[in-house]
């Protein structure tokens, strides 16, 4: 037996030591050995399958491999059959136009739960969140109907996918509705109440829908007709989603945020309406979606115009931000720098990988929630990597990482609802590969489109998409070739490093204006918002290495920032890379310069009320 086969046997027995793994890798460099390895692994699986087929299997909890393979085949055929079986006869035979006719969905902005909230100046009584019990077999109950007797009927799919027979039941008050049951109100209308929560659905005549229960949401699949919904506040991590042929609508109940300070209480409502009443004086205001108000000892007043419009774009000045290391998990990481420079950062930025938020890993983390609760905006540069391993853009575009990473973060972002900046693989030029590598510029753009679409599908509409390139043009990955398009990019961003490698031709002392003007000029011409205006630009990230000449110094470079950025009005955010040798406080002089820049009122440092948000 060859060394390769023996290594493979030992590898698959109890693993290999480092030296043996290195030897195995050395052998696998040879294509002939790779072919032999594949034959070996095929043989291992075939031995397993054959022995099980012979009935010589040891008692295990799993069935024979072949039976499992066969059961997968049955599942494949059954799922296709079940999909047909679950449709009503009318649906199977109805013309496409009938099933796809446009539906009236009268809910959401029109009728949402109204919450009356009375707040004190020095304390907050938060709306208690209802918690739903784990998924129950009964999702809803018919509460009332407009007609005497049955209003329409219910079709209940057979429990055995191999059985095509479905059950048809009349809908009367008290009828229970389970997951997958299809409702047709026919000539009547009726009201359903969800089990274990106060949400009600009123279905008009001619309405057909089904209810689906999923781990993170309940779906109302509305085939035709009209539904009015009064939606109870959904628990964290869950949503009620209406799905029609043309749209999805994600309802989480009324959404608001409350921040209680020593002298004031601030309220911001993202959806629904809230009555906000001050203890002192007793006056009150009713705050609607995207509105906010402040209560003090003098009474209550509505806020003025938001400091941020659209996708978190400041109406004046520039957001002042900092990039912290991914390992900075303590809330104090941001406040330490803020204390040093005497002003709060409006934006906190971190580099993260796909694996940082996969599966059960939380988003936002407790630290991120704390940052957001204090009014800072999050900016995440999300790189397709797992640990140190780069994931192929083409694989991301084909959905290989949807279940574990992309959809996971999308759902968590949607559930949180707080707007934040998200960039996908900043500065991709450094990773571009040849044709067939899965890392071409075209693959990058496909990946962007796919991930953006998954977030939109998950209801994470509040995510602000930031496309980040190097400010240094790269012919192998031009800005134009890498740009995903106006419809899936909210901000453009570029990195800008001064004097990073002293002495090299490419990197020598330049002002920030010199570094970024080419990119800003390109962006002006090629990236437009829906009103034909230039899209906002973010410096993400910028930094300055130590000075090597008597002048200009790093401190001088910092002090020049406000004036230089004011001359580039498209730049609406500047995030400093506060790490290692590039730290803003690398010397006392540099820190003084950075602090002086931050003191300029041009930079927005006080976190504004969230445009949309929920209590952290």
């Amino acid at each position, binding site marked *: 037996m060859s060394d390769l086969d023996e290594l493979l046997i030992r590898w698959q027995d109890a693993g290999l030591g480092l030296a043996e793994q290195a030897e195995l890798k050395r052998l696998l460099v040879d294509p002939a050995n790779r072919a032999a390895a594949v034959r070996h692994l095929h043989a291992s699986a*075939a*031995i397993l399958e054959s022995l099980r087929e*012979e009935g010589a299997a040891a008692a295990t909890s799993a069935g024979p491999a072949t039976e499992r393979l066969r059961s997968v085949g049955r599942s*494949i055929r059954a799922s296709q059959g079940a999909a047909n079986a679950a449709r009503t006869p009318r649906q199977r035979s109805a013309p496409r136009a009938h099933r796809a006719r446009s539906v009236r969905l009268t809910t959401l902005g029109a009728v949402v739960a109204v919450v009356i909230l009375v707040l004190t100046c020095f304390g907050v009584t938060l709306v208690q969140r209802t918690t739903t019990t784990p998924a129950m077999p009964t999702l809803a109950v018919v509460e009332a109907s407009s007609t005497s007797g049955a209003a329409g009927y219910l079709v209940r799919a057979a429990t055995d996918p191999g059985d095509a027979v479905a059950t048809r039941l009349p809908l009367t008050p008290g009828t229970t509705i389970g997951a997958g049951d299809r409702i047709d109100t026919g000539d009547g209308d009726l009201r359903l109440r969800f089990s274990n929560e106060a949400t009600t659905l009123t279905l008009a005549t001619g309405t057909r829908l089904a209810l689906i229960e999923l781990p993170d949401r309940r779906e109302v699949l509305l085939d035709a007709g009209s539904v009015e919904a009064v939606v109870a506040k959904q628990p964290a991590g869950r949503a009620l989603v209406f799905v029609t042929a043309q749209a999805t609508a994600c309802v989480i109940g009324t959404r608001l945020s409350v921040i209680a300070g020593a002298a004031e209480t601030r309220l911001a409502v993202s959806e629904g309406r809230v009555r906000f009443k001050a203890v002192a004086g007793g006056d009150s205001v009713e705050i609607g979606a995207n509105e906010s108000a402040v209560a003090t000892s003098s009474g209550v007043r509505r806020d003025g115009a938001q400091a941020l419009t659209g996708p978190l774009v400041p109406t004046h000045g520039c957001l002042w931000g900092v990039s912290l290391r991914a390992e900075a998990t303590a809330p104090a990481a941001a406040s330490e720098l803020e204390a040093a420079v005497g002003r709060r950062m409006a934006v906190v930025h971190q580099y993260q990988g796909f694996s940082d938020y996969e599966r059960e890993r939380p988003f936002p983390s407790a630290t991120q929630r704390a940052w957001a609760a204090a009014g800072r905006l999050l900016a995440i540069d999300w790189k397709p990597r797992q640990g140190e391993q780069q994931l192929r853009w083409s694989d991301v575009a084909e959905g*290989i990482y949807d279940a574990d990473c992309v959809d996971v973060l999308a759902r968590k972002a949607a559930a949180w609802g707080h707007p934040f900046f998200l960039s996908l693989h900043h500065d991709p030029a450094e990773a571009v590969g040849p044709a067939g590598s899965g890392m071409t510029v075209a693959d990058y753009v496909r990946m962007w489109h796919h991930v953006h679409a998954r977030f939109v599908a998950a209801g994470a509409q509040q995510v602000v998409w930031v496309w980040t390139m190097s400010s240094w043009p790269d012919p192998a990955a031009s800005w134009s070739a890498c740009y995903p398009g106006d419809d899936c990019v909210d901000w453009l961003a570029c990195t800008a490093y001064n004097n990073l490698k002293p002495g090299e031709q490419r990197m020598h002392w330049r002002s920030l204006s010199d570094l970024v003007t080419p990119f800003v000029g390109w962006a002006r011409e090629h990236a437009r918002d829906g009103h034909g205006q230039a899209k906002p630009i973010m410096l993400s990230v910028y930094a300055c290495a130590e000075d090597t000449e008597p002048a200009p110094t790093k401190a001088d470079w910092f002090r020049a920032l406000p004036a230089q950025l004011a001359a580039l009005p498209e730049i609406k955010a500047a995030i400093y890379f506060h790490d290692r040798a590039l730290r803003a406080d690398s010397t006392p002089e540099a820190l003084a310069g950075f602090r002086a820049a931050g003191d300029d009122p041009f930079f927005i440092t006080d976190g504004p009320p969230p445009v949309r948000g929920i209590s952290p």
Partner: protein
Amino acid sequence: MGQEAVMDTRLKELSTRFMAERHGLMAYIYGLVQQAEVAEDVFQEVWLRLADAAGRGVAIDHPPRWFRGVARNIILHHWRTEKRARVIVDSELLDLVDQAFAEQESEGGELERRRRGLQECLRELPAHAKEVLRLKYVADLTADEVGARLSRSSASVLMLLSRLRRGLEDCVNRRMRLSGGAA
């Protein structure tokens, strides 16, 4: 063709391809996780994700590579979360295994003939030899554990496994030559 019908057709096409590639995919998965039950769970999870992706209309240009990519991702998560999982390897070795399977995609016919030949060769093995293989592959025992059952050292069990695998390979090669296939 309506959108629903397109989706159904696409799912059928991908399902057919999945079934055609199932032995190769199982070889990849089982080769990496080396535990039959875990391998079956991963295998089924790949199918579920394929069904979901097909239902969403995701463009899958290269199904076998997509299957292995999803399987790899599931396996990586399994290794990270299962502290007692075996066969944890570094990414470079994983890449080489991926490359090896990708290169052999065009050899599916020969691999299928070898698989059938191996089944016939296994039937010819004496009972005690099959028992060793059964303990190793079906019961998921390590060489140490097999040795404890058979009152042998793990080294001798590994040597026995090597000889059995070599014998099976020789048998398969003979059958391939007799049937005119490559060996």
